[in-house]
């Protein structure tokens, strides 16, 4: 019997968790500043925005797909959220409307991706490569390639707010991770996501509506994008049409993969995304503290992703014996 681990962790998480611990120790040796609470919270906050999207991305990848459009979708929805806030006067109801509007818009955008992938039978990579270009271009067009600036102080305050000393975005990240982890591991839908990603034909014969399951993974990701877009745009109280949320797709996918979900689909973990996101944040933080050029950080991130895949493949092989 496999021992069950606390907090819904799985054995797949152990590798990335180990890497996290090692990094933690290394970072605290490298800089005394690292262990300060403010620095730790800052790391968490920085990774929350793409991390939240990674939570949805995990479902897409487990079901055998990929979503490259999330970065530009975040910018697009963030811009629309600011327009809603400004348009409705910037008060409480305006902010509430921005939240609801962003999530609905995310769901619709995700549905659009999902329908093209399932009913349209176009490869997910191609569909979302296309929508990635579309959302960025729409944002640039509406914003005249400039900034969307909110007139609402309340919106900006929400973005900077904390609860019990912990930034709101971090709370949202963890609460969503808890909920989506339950969705993946404890519900029919989650089981079917794994089934569809493992063997589509078996899933179809087992009376599982594979198109619906797949489509919903994109919708979930879209809703996560909506949440992230509001948090991100309110934190800056603005959206820059050309570079807000640039490369978020890479950060989200990296968090999923580093967290232990294989790109081949069929299985995966939601808490792994949290671990993966934190690992990325800690590496960035360490590079900053060691004053490594910001331009080199991408190189390190890239190497870590590749290494993660190598390590996972090795451990999968030893698990299967032979």
């Amino acid at each position, binding site marked *: *019997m*496999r021992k069950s681990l606390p907090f819904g962790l799985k054995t797949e998480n152990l590798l990335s968790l180990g890497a996290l611990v090692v990094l933690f120790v290394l970072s605290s040796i490298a800089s005394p500043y690292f262990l300060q609470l403010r620095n730790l919270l800052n790391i968490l906050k920085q990774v929350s925005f793409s991390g939240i999207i990674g939570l949805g991305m995990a479902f897409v990848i487990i079901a055998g797909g990929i979503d490259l459009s999330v970065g530009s979708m975040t910018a697009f929805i963030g811009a629309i959220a600011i327009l809603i806030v400004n348009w409705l006067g910037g008060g409480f109801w305006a902010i509430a409307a921005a939240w609801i509007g962003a999530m609905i818009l995310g769901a619709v955008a995700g549905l659009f991706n999902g329908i093209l992938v399932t009913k349209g039978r176009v490869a997910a990579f191609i569909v979302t490569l296309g929508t990635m270009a579309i959302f960025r271009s729409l944002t640039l067009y509406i914003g005249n390639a400039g900034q969307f600036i909110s007139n609402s102080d309340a919106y900006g305050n929400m973005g900077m707010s904390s609860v019990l000393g912990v930034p709101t975005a971090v709370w949202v990240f963890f609460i969503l991770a808890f909920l989506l982890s*339950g969705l993946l591991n*404890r*519900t*029919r839908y989650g*089981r*079917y996501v*794994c*089934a569809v990603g*493992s*063997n589509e*034909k*078996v*899933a*179809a*014969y*087992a*009376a*599982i*509506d594979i198109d619906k399951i797949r489509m919903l993974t994109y919708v979930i990701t879209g809703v996560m994008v909506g949440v992230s877009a509001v948090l991100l745009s309110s934190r800056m109280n603005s959206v820059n049409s050309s570079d807000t949320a640039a490369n978020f797709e890479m950060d989200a996918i990296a968090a999923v993969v580093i967290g232990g979900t294989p790109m081949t689909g*069929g*299985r995966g973990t939601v808490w792994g995304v949290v671990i993966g996101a934190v690992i990325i944040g800690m590496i960035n933080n360490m590079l900053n503290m060691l004053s490594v050029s910001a331009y080199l950080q991408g190189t390190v991130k890239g190497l870590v992703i590749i290494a993660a895949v190598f390590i996972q493949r090795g451990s999968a092989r030893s698990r*299967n*014996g*032979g």
Partner: protein
Amino acid sequence: MSDVLVRTSGISKEFSSVRVLDDISIEIRKGEILGIIGENGAGKSTFIKILSGIYTPTQGSIEFDGRRVELRDAAAAKRIGVSLIPQEFNLVETLNVYENIFLGEELRTRGGLLDRRGMIAHTRELMKELGAAVDPSASIRTLSVAQKQMVEIAKAIKIESRLLIMDEPTTVLTVHEIDILFALMRRLKGKGVTIVYISHKLKEVRSVCDRVMVLRDGRFICLETTDALEIDEMARRMVGRELNQIFPPKRKAEGEVAFRVEGLAVPGLVAGLSFEIRSGEILGFAGLIGAGRTELAEAIMGIRRVSAGRIFVGGRELRIRKPADAVKAGIAYLSEDRQGAGIITSFAVHKNVTLVSLGDYARPLISRAKELEKTRFYVDRFEIKAPSLDARLENLSGGNQQKVSLAKSLDTDPKVLIVDEPTRGVDVKAKHDIYAFIRELADRGLAVMFISSELEEVMGMCERIVVMREGRAAGQVEGGHITEEEIMYYAMGIKEGV
């Protein structure tokens, strides 16, 4: 020159410190056909995977033709002349037949380009030798399980090897193909090829093998000439005790018509078939490969597009467009294609068992305890041998995977049960349990559609048998006087008439 081709000394194999093969020391003689029999999970496949370099033994050594060999991988075994027909298909679904047969060993023209024409011609010859109607350029995806089996066989006999290992090659073949295969085996043997043959069909083992080895729980039980082992004795040594009557008593079904199909047609495959099954009845479906039995079942389940026909369950007409519609109407289906359509090999045992019936365990959170409880029921009932309930299915033996696949279909609590090769690769003891369980379900009022290429089991289980040929019902036999010949006459088109 000695007459021993392979000598194994003290071969053992452990998976995460569980011993599944224990100290096997045998000699395989040149030019013999050696049968290996044993219960599901006895270690047969593990043993031949070691001979063919797929697994390395935990302990022990192998001598091939008098020389000690280290078989590091399958390629090393191939180099010394070992070829294997594996129990689970190992074909690339997206490639076509000849590409699979020559995968990694493509023929080339003198210019160094792929010799497509040569490979197709060679494939056609192989198929002719096997008496199989398989188009060399057909995509593997479009083939039936039996046709895939033929491709695996062709792949293994493409070059003459010294040791040919066949792991349950006949589970999905019908008498006709099996006869051709046996003739081929005898021909190869005449040319000096040594053959290792694994099967649960003891009658076949007895007719084609020179000697038989029996394994039980990973241990060597005996190795004797076939003439010295009656079929009953083989079964007794496999199981370790006496087996009683294998088929449950038949009963004439008096119930209402529970399932009715009218003029069901699938273009090119099923030509307007009609039949009805009473509650409590097990209706058999016999026929040769390509007769359309599986296609008929898949059409009923909404997997294949139907051009005409009506389906009734309990008198109510159904509109079945997708498998979910059929399941909702109370129809359960066990596919003949275990790994392709039946189970998810990377899923644990309990997750496979509840794959179709998951709704009963989730409200809305899945109760793991309930899942495990139900799984334990099937594990006991069918004696499923698994390292643990959490074990991925790929770590179970083939026959045990089959039992899990069956459990998955049964767990929906259906009114109509369609089983396609329900005992594929299952040992004698477990067959007995499965037959008894299906009978019990029928007695509780289920209508069962029983498709099998094993005539003996169709005749043993069914009062009434529909014999299919080229997509139609070529004949129907019933009552106590069903003979194998009569069924075969209908199946081969020698006799007609319903």
